[in-house]
């Protein structure tokens, strides 16, 4: 059974997000397995330059909706554009990323089409043309294989879980007019908090500081993150103390990250924190309590004061360079 695939890609500051490469690479693999085509959709203002690259990762066709009315994410308009592309391409499977706006888009498309979504999958495979997505449930305590029983099968992937592969395809670019739909709400203002820094969920390395930081001075953790090219995270206790902002929180009620390397500094390892980082490839724990639960969930542990150990690690790293 052939199934056509649609990958909806995201971008920021004139660059494709890492998730875009992941989704198109995965879309190519699924299209090859099912004998269907892979279409990519990119929406925004002045996004044409980014579109061409998507062919290099395996898109047969790229729909580009480039218009000033699409400059910022308006869920109503973006959903209308996506639903239209699903129709014209006959897509049976739709791949989406995992930023807050990605999830909103997936949910809104599903609501419009009367179907479900396999949210935040960590892998997917095909069986008789149906997608089986594997995803965490119950705060990561269980993994579920879920099947979407109606088309389009919409699936969103966590960042950093799919292999990026080059696979040159035609990459034919097709302009798409903005949808005739009207939005039910208005965007007043966009506040970008930081530019240029690595987004937590997409980072290869995450260095987290917990209550053991003892205050809002995260200099030692920031220095280590910088030397590893990573992002800084925090436990909920640290966020509740007001030391870091909510967007840095990792855990069941924060972000879920799957970096190659997660370094937990002064984090005890509560189950709700583990829910946000236990899928990391390698976990390092630095804690001055040798009985801290985090050590049971770590690959490498150092028992010691983080204010001694973390700067020492940074110093050794700098020596290596």
């Amino acid at each position, binding site marked *: 059974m052939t199934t056509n695939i649609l990958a909806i890609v*995201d971008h*920021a500051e004139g660059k494709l*997000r890492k998730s875009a490469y992941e989704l198109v690479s995965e879309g190519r693999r699924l299209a090859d397995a099912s004998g269907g085509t892979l279409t990519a959709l990119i929406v925004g203002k002045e996004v044409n330059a980014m579109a061409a690259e998507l062919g290099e990762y395996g898109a047969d066709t790229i729909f580009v909706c480039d218009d000033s009315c699409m400059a910022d994410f308006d*869920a109503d308009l973006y959903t209308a554009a996506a639903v239209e592309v699903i129709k014209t391409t006959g897509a049976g499977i739709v791949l989406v990323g995992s*930023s*807050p706006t990605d*999830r909103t888009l*997936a*949910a809104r498309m599903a*609501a*419009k089409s009367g179907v*479900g*979504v396999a*949210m935040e999958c960590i892998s997917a495979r095909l069986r008789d043309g149906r997608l089986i997505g594997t995803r*965490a*449930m119950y*705060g990561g305590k*269980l*993994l*579920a*294989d*879920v*099947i979407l029983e109606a088309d389009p099968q919409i699936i969103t992937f966590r960042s950093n879980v799919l292999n990026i592969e080059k696979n040159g395809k035609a990459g034919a670019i097709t302009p798409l007019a903005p949808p005739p739909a009207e939005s*039910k*709400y*208005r*965007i*007043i*203002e*966009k*506040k*970008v*908090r*930081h530019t240029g820094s690595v*987004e937590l969920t997409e980072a290869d*390395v995450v260095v987290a500081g917990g209550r053991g930081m003892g205050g809002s001075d995260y200099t030692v953790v920031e220095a280590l993150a910088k030397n*590893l090219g990573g992002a800084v995270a925090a436990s909920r206790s640290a966020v509740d103390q007001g030391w870091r902002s*909510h967007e840095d929180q990792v855990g*069941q*009620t*924060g972000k879920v990250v799957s970096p190659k*390397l997660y370094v937990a500094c002064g984090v005890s390892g509560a189950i*709700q924190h583990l829910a946000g980082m236990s*899928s990391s*490839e*390698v*976990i390092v724990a630095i804690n001055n309590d*040798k009985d801290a639960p985090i050590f*049971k*969930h*770590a*690959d*490498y*542990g*150092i*028992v010691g004061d983080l204010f001694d150990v973390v700067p*020492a*690690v940074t*110093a*050794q790293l700098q020596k290596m360079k």
Partner: protein
Amino acid sequence: MNVIVLLKQVPDTESIIEIADDGASIKTEDVKWVVNPYDELAVEEALQVVEKNGEGQVTVLSAGIKQAETAIRSALAMGAHEGILIEDERLERADTTATGQVLAAALKKIPHDLIIAGQRAVDGDNYLVPAIVAESLDLPILPVIIKESIADGKITCEQVIQGGTMVVEADLPAVITTQRGLNEPRYASMPKIMKAKKKKIASLSLDEIGITDDSLFSNPKIRVESLQVPQKSRAGIIVEGGTPAEKADNLLRHLREDAQVI
């Protein structure tokens, strides 16, 4: 101002979760149930809206089995005025489409100016039901918000996006969903808990809200085929060393040579 909170009962995040014999659902007998943490934020925000507005009431709406009354009572103890449970055995395992449509059907019969839901329920983490409710009711939806204010029949919200926020505005009635940082849910005082125990919770059947199509439950759009306990074994090595520098050196050697992540 009639504010409706969509509230789901979920297993306490501390609970041990075990897979049931069918391999696709969980054992529910020993689970401790609590209000979904994001819905607790929704209750708090609803109370603040009514308090600020000086009039109106907060109604908590849940779809589930009898046991969900406990969660509704927790919201009543926080100060919600009324609780409604749409009760049916089939709702325990209903998928998001069925749940969303059931809630929307009930909402057609309940006056509402503002509907507040959690961004997700931390059992299935589906992030879906509020979008389905908004679509069925043809209402604007502003998801994942950390700030909200209401004036002249309009709601203005600060919405979380990757790397920042967006200020958005919609006419009421509208649906909004919560993000941590929106507020700190209040504790229920003992007298309020006692009072909430005596409050009557209205019960609605699916028939009463006009849901007669059984295929909503028999043909789910999402089906959990199987559940597994994740198996990830960790090396569990304690890195030794006489000084912090030695420990650091040994750690980096492990990361470079064994784990090959740096």
